[in-house]
Every structure is written in C-alpha cells, then in structure tokens.
C-alpha cells in the first residue's frame, strides 16, 4: 500500500470504522481520492470495496480526480438565485471556457456550484478555495480571478 495513504488512514482508525471520515481525511491531504487506492482503503478499514465505493459515489464533495489549483464554487441557493447567480455562473463559464465540474486549460481553476454558503444576506456568493466573496457583480470577476496564482 502507498505509504502516505497508510499513514493517513492510521490516524483515523476507529471502531467501528468510519468510511466517510477516512475518505475526507485522505482527500484533505491528497486533493482527491485516487480510484486505485479504493481496495487499499477498504482493506485498511476492514470493510468491503463496495462499501467504500458506495460512500465515495454518494457524497458530492468527494472527488475522484484532482481539481485545478483553485476551486471556484458559485452558490446556486435561492437568495443567490434572486440576486443573479445565474449571470455570475454564465460569465465564469464564458471566461474560463469550461462547464460546471470542469477544470480550465492550464489547470488553474475548477468551476463548480454549491447550494448555500450561509452568506445569503450578502449575496450573490462565490467561494474560491476557502475564501468567500459576496455582493459580487459579473464586472468584478476579472479583478477577483487575478488574485489567484
């Protein structure tokens, strides 16, 4: 087994085993969950491969492929909808020439959506990595994206 995977899994060992927690810990460190590690993960946790795949496929935040260097998430919740998140998303799709879920050429940005950041009173909301931006206008996107290397 990959040594790094092994050491991360050793830290989240519990009885009974917690598959989601293990996968989140791995993703936190590796950026994504490599498909080839699934059987190792199952073995290390003492569960079946099917159980691991079941959890992996269920949660929207668990990724099988590495995202770009920065993850842009546009909030599609109702307050952001009322405040024009649709325009923001279209603008980002045009600018980055990607669809939702895709990574832009060069691997700098991955574009995604989210359902609510709890920033509804300062919407529309865009989250880039762990930074939150509110009251965003499509015209401000240029300056915003420039901040990211």
């Amino acid at each position, binding site marked *: 087994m990959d040594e790094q995977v092994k050491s991360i899994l050793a830290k989240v060992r519990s009885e009974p085993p917690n598959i*989601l927690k293990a996968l989140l810990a791995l993703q936190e460190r590796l950026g994504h969950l490599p498909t080839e590690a699934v059987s190792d993960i199952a073995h290390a946790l003492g569960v079946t491969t099917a159980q691991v795949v*079941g959890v992996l496929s*269920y949660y929207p935040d668990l990724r099988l492929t590495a995202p770009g260097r920065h993850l842009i998430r546009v909030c*599609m919740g109702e*307050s952001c909808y*009322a405040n024009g998140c649709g325009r923001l998303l279209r603008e980002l799709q045009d600018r980055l020439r990607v669809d939702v879920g895709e990574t832009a050429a060069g691997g700098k940005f991955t574009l995604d959506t989210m*359902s609510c950041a709890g920033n509804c009173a*300062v919407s529309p909301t865009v989250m880039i990595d762990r930074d939150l931006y509110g009251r965003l206008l499509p015209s401000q996107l240029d300056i915003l994206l420039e901040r990211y290397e």
Partner: protein
Amino acid sequence: MSTATRLYLSNDTSARAAGAGALADAWSEHPEVQLIRISSRGAFFLEPMVERDTPAGRVAWFNVTAQDLPLILSGTDGTPVRSIPFLAQQTRFTFANFGETEPLALDEYQTRGGLSGLEAALRITPDAIIEELRVSQLRGRGGAAFPVWNKWKVAQQTQADEKYVVANADEGDAGTYCDRMILEGDPFRLLEGMLICARAIGAGRGYVYCRQEYPAAAKTLRAAIQKTDEAEWLELDGEPFPIEVVEGAGSYVCGEETALLESLEGKRGVVRARPPYPAQSGLYGRPTIVSNVLTFATIPNILSRGGAWHAALGTEQSRGTIALQLGGRVKHPGLVEVPFGLSLHQVLEQFGGGMAPGSRFKAVQVGGPLGSLFPASQMDIPICYDAFAKAGAVLGHGGIVVYDHETDMVDLARHFMAFTADESCGKCTPCRIGSVRGREILERIQAGSGTIEDLSLLHDLGDTMKVASLCALGGRAPYPVLTAIEHFPAEFRAKLRT
C-alpha cells in the same frame, strides 16, 4: 503617549464577505486603532459596520471603507446602535450577545448571563429539566417543529449503555444562516444547550454535524470546545462530556436526522425508515437526541429564566421567538429575532425595508427550498406554525427569500425540481423518480415544447410525491413548484406549445 481607540468590527463570515476582512487588514498596523473582532449584529446590509464606545453606549458607522478611519477616530457622524430601527424593533434573547461580545471570550459570555442555564439545570433533577421544557412549549427549530420535551422524555426513558446528543449544524436550507451565526458568534450557547440536554437524558457524548460549506464555523466551534474543556465545564457529574465536530460532505439530505446519523457513522447518508425514532434508537443504535443548533441555543435562557417566561412569548401554538433570516431582493437583508405572530408583510416592511433599489416585488418564499411561495395578495399571513400549517406551508428554518419582477417563475420552478433531483437520496421511488420526471417536464416547458397536459402531469406527480415520499425532501419538494404555478399561471401558459 496616547492610547489606541477600541474599535469593534465583526469577524462573522458574511461581515468579512461584505468587506470587514479588508478593513481589518488595512487597519492592522495602525497605531491609533485597537480592533476588537466581535460577532455580527446581523444587520448585514450595514456591514462592514464599525463601532466604538461612548458614555451613552456604542456608536456605529455603516458600510465603512478604509478611508473612513479619520471620521471614526474623530467620533463624528456615528449613529447610536440603540437607535438603529432594524435592531431596536427586535426582541433579542437567543441573539442578545450578537455584536456585543468576542465569540471566544468565555468570561464575557459568563458576565452576560452565560452558563446560568446550565447551573440551574445542575441544581434540579433530569425530570425537572424536562418539565421546564414542557412548560416552555419549545418546538424544534430545524423544520419539523416537534415538541422538544417529548423527544427528551423518550430518550431519557429508553435504557441503554450509552446515549448521544447531536447538534444538527447542517443548515442545508438555502437562505438560512442563523445557525452559522451562532456557531461563529456565540458558540458557548450551543455547547451549554447540549450539556443541559445531556444532563436531562443521561448522555455521555456529543457531536456537532457541521456542513462543509462552513469552515469558519467549524474552526470557531472547535476552539470553543477546547476553551470550555480547559475551563472544566465540559463535564457532567465529574465525568468528561466530550463533544466532537464532524464535517459533512455536501449532501442536503444529510440534514435529515436519520440520514445525518448514517453519515456520522461514516456511511451513505440515506434516510432510515422511522420508527424507531432516533430518541429510541439513533447513533449506533443508541438513544440519540438530534436537534437543530438554534434549538439548543434557545435552551439556556429557558432554564435560567424558566419555562413560563418562554411560554409567555409568541402565539398559542408557537411560543417564544423566531429567528427570521431575510435574503433575496429585500433592501435590508439580515437576521431578525422577534416573537412569533408578526405578519409576513410587517416583517418585510418594518425590517426588510421594502425592496432593493430598482426591484419590484414578485413573490416571497418562506422555509427554504422546500417552502411555499407567497404572492403579494397573501402577505398578511401571521408568522407562526399554526397559520402556516393551515395554509399548507412551512416555516422551516426561518429563511425568507424575496424574488423581484425579473424572476422567471418557470425557470425558478425548474431550479427547485432540479435541486430535488440532485439531492434525492434515492431510498424511495416517488422522490427518486418523481423529481427527475418533474425536472424533465419543467425543462420541456421552459424550452417551449410543453403542453397543457404537462401542467396536469406536474400536479399529479406533485400529489404522489406529497403523500408517498419517505421524508420531507420528496414530500415537500412539490410545494414551491405548485405554488409557483398556482400564483403565476400566466407565465407557465405563455410558454406552452399551442
């Protein structure tokens, strides 16, 4: 040497998104400024808001930019906080500390009455705690509005080698943010409420299931847990009461209590059939109280002031205060804590301040993505559980989103169904299949190829989902769609193929 002036600036996520973070950076090295990072008052339309002390109380400056510093330091043009109408007209109990304290200052929390609820609970028997909650008539604030004492009684009376207290901090309803504010702004209140619950039911361990979209909330809460642990009040009867923060992974249905428990156990977040209810058999099959963050945060005041105090607020079936969260196209989006019973119109005018500039009212949605839409003609409905139930609507978690004249109701209805189709856990057919069919029909109408039969199909589909779904995701999903069609039929008909 002149001493620096203490300026108060919120560290709340939304205050930072509004510009408080940039202000703090700009002023960080300024010798004349001592910045105190507090919770937010929830008047988000005024953020970033900067305050300073005066003999007559705090004075505030609104929508501050870095260049406003000389004005603030000279003390000119500030507004006394207590004369801000948005705040002055509220009845703040659960949110009384907001804007006043530093979230992680345990001493301030205690000075302002914190921990007196827990102390009161430790002086009486578990039965007496539950009795106090029965008298208070507190109903859960997560959406289902079930009497809190009742669940506690069941969990208390169920024999088991272990029991758990779980705070539901998944806050999945878009348009709601009061749980986030509590986690970030007054985390000790949540922990105090959880400890009172643990004492009442005899639990030995607690969890907070926090949505992944709230990184600052999880971080603050973990720091608060550490502080309470160091201060040695994270214990019951001399035994430690560990509380762990667990983060979710982006699934809306994991806010449903049984799906949440599956997820806490590390499995797929699929809804469990009930009964048994979590209070009887929850996490790892043990009696478990799953309650909303706001519910737990309401409890310390009930113990310190008495159940009768709480029952004296609000309306017949809805006692206490409700935390409304205004969003969408209102002029004044923000948190409003008021006793139950004000009309929707009053809330939107008195607190919301009417529409955002350039916007005309079209509809308002109460209760999150599963909540009904109300047109202008239905704005006199009182905000309380009974009136909403009678109207076939829900208060949910108190989210209120206002849509303006630019909103395309067909697209909005499609948006709702697409959400349900994406988030359905797949356990039951009416929701799993129905939501996908509903989305297809609405996409067809939106594309201009729908027929009048499609509209009746949507009604039939909606009726089936309402009665036959296993949980409220499928059961409530038709409401926003069908109320959109009911109140704006012309928009739907205009798109049908003729």
